[in-house]
């Protein structure tokens, strides 16, 4: 076991799947010799050859077309879309084609594509590099959407994503790439694609979050603990499907819940979670469902990011409000 950054954990997972299955292919803009603009695929071309890890022309829709066509000829593609903001260029490929193709064939053919893409605010990027765009994809039948909040899950999830015969959108948090280190096994392990995880146990209130906001929620939970408010923190890990069982078990214990996302309030994975809770668990709640989300403006100009992205203070304030309701 070694301490590994979030990004190294992903690289380690990719190394694993390339070793395990000779039909896996990594491709995208700059992923080859350069090892990706963030070095996520660093050294993989040297190790596995240009046949398995290769650059594409600069066109995201073409990259998705490539992934679908490679699936049709027996390959297991792992395309990278360099930034999640660029997925708009590949929207038909992802939503109009890939997510529907297994269904279109009446289940006859599989499209085992894992689309990796970095997202998330807080690193002062150029425009269209940091947006949380998951909402466009979680409402797409046929597509799985996962994202890790820590290095351990990042490696285990990327391996599961590639091994899955369903198309998976694997969202990599930009801010966590190098800001987070963790014990990560060198050996192979997997994290299930459709399960949330209780990352901190508590009894008074449930905080549901994903990706970087999990860490904000944990910081908020520390602050709440000082006032003897015991918060349970759940990391969704899978945004589609949502593991409601884990959330509901927690609510049955705490009877209070706050749902947190970095995306704008109107772009709502949180809204889906809140509506599920309202439908199935309202009788178990002692207070309204709380929500923490970014405001409904376009993603902010970089200098103002920290005024916009929900942080641990926002979560703590909302948790106190719901706890004291």
């Amino acid at each position, binding site marked *: 076991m070694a301490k590994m950054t979030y990004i190294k954990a992903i690289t380690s997972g990719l190394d694993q799947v390339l070793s395990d299955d000779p039909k896996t292919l990594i491709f995208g803009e700059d992923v080859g010799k350069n090892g990706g603009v963030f070095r996520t695929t660093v050294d993989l071309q040297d190790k596995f050859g240009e046949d398995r890890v290769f650059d594409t022309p600069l066109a995201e829709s073409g990259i998705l*077309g490539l992934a679908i066509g*490679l699936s049709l*000829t027996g390959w297991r593609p792992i395309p990278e879309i360099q930034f999640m903001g660029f997925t708009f260029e590949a929207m038909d490929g992802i939503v109009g084609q890939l997510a529907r193709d297994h269904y279109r064939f009446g289940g006859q053919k599989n499209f085992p594509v894992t689309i990796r893409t970095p997202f998330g605010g807080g690193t002062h990027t150029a425009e269209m590099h940091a947006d949380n765009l998951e909402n466009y994809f979680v409402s797409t*039948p046929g597509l799985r959407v996962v994202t890790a909040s820590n290095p351990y899950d990042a490696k285990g999830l990327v391996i599961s994503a590639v091994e899955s015969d369903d198309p998976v959108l694997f969202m990599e948090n930009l801010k966590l790439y190098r800001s987070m280190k963790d014990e990560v096994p060198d050996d192979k392990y997997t994290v299930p694609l459709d399960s949330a995880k209780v990352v901190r146990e508590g009894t008074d209130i449930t905080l549901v979050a994903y990706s970087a906001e999990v860490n904000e929620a944990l910081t908020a939970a520390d602050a709440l603990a000082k006032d003897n408010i015991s918060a349970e923190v759940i990391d969704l890990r899978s945004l589609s499907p949502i593991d409601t069982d884990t959330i509901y078990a927690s609510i049955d214990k705490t009877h209070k819940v706050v749902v947190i996302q970095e995306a704008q309030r109107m772009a709502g994975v949180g809204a889906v979670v809140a509506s599920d809770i309202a439908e199935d668990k309202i009788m178990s709640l002692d207070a309204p469902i709380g929500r923490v989300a970014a405001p409904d403006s376009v993603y902010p100009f970089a200098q103002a990011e920290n005024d916009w992205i929900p942080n641990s203070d926002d979560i703590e304030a909302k948790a106190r409000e719901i706890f004291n309701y």
Partner: protein
Amino acid sequence: MANGSKQIVDFAKIKATMADPYKHPVQVINGDGKVVDPDTLAKYSDDQLVDFMKKMVWERTLHEQTMNFSRQGRLGFYAPTAGEEASEMGSVTAFKDQDFLLPAYRDLPQMIQHGTTVAKGFLWSKGHVSGNQYENPNMLFPQIIIGAQYAETAGVALGIQKNGDKDRVAFVYTGDGGTSQGDWYEGINFTSAYQAPAVFFVQNNGWAISVPRKKQTAAETLAQKAVAMGVPSVQVDGMDIVAVHEVAKAARDFAVAGNGPVVIETLTYRYGAHSSAGDDPSRYRTDEETKPWFDADPLIRMRKVLTDKGVWSQDQEDKLVDQYKDEFKDAMKEAEAAPAQKVSDFLKWTYNVPTPAVKKQIAEFEAKESK
């Protein structure tokens, strides 16, 4: 700079000459049924030429029968194919079973030739999943999002190359309108960048629903667009089945030899409406405009060549038409007898491993369906 001094670049001249290599579409039999390239025609036996004619009669009869079925309300979305028989049958017959076909919605005739049945073609039109399940696995369903099939062709071609298949290509169709799509360029360009084996067909039938070819682009030909991607291309008389077949075969040979892709523009015409769903061509084109194309009909010219050779008769053709009509009527009966579809199956096919929510919905629908 003084007027009249020599300019460093003459854009007017470049513009005026850039279509020069495309001035003479490949042709073997002209619109009057005259053989203009006897050497090429001589490469084909009478049996082969008769087979071409049979396939065109088959496709024309399929068109007429599907229009009848549409009027009777027995088909869903269907794109008429009359006028495009030489382009479609001439091209698809140049490929082998192992070649991978990526069709668009006007390409059911090629799909049936490549490895599905007429009944399944009808089921696709009616909206039934079994219309998408083929005898030949080397085929994708008809693409509705014009251009997407071009992007996907790049992946199939690269997959073929990576698998080391030496006698296999991807082949794909779109129309003149499709060449305006970004995916059209991306697909050809990716395939070219990897020098992967694919043949890209543009069936230029003059119309993208109501928008004429000249409004799609100022480029004089669609074929010349391929030059920008480093891909050789050609215009072929798309009403001349021998020319189309000959060009398609040469393109396949070129691609399987590892030379990268080819783009073929077939000059053809859509006699009928865009689709069976309410398009009325009289709103946007006149009989005067369409007449030359009807005169250049691919069946008329082939009929003349074969009749001159003494290997074809009207009586023989009439019998074939009757035989094909019966086959299509039987296929429709087969399609109409297909089992009802179940929403629970749709849910099962949405994911390989159903999500918890989908599992619940499967159970709900199965309970309803078993009543």
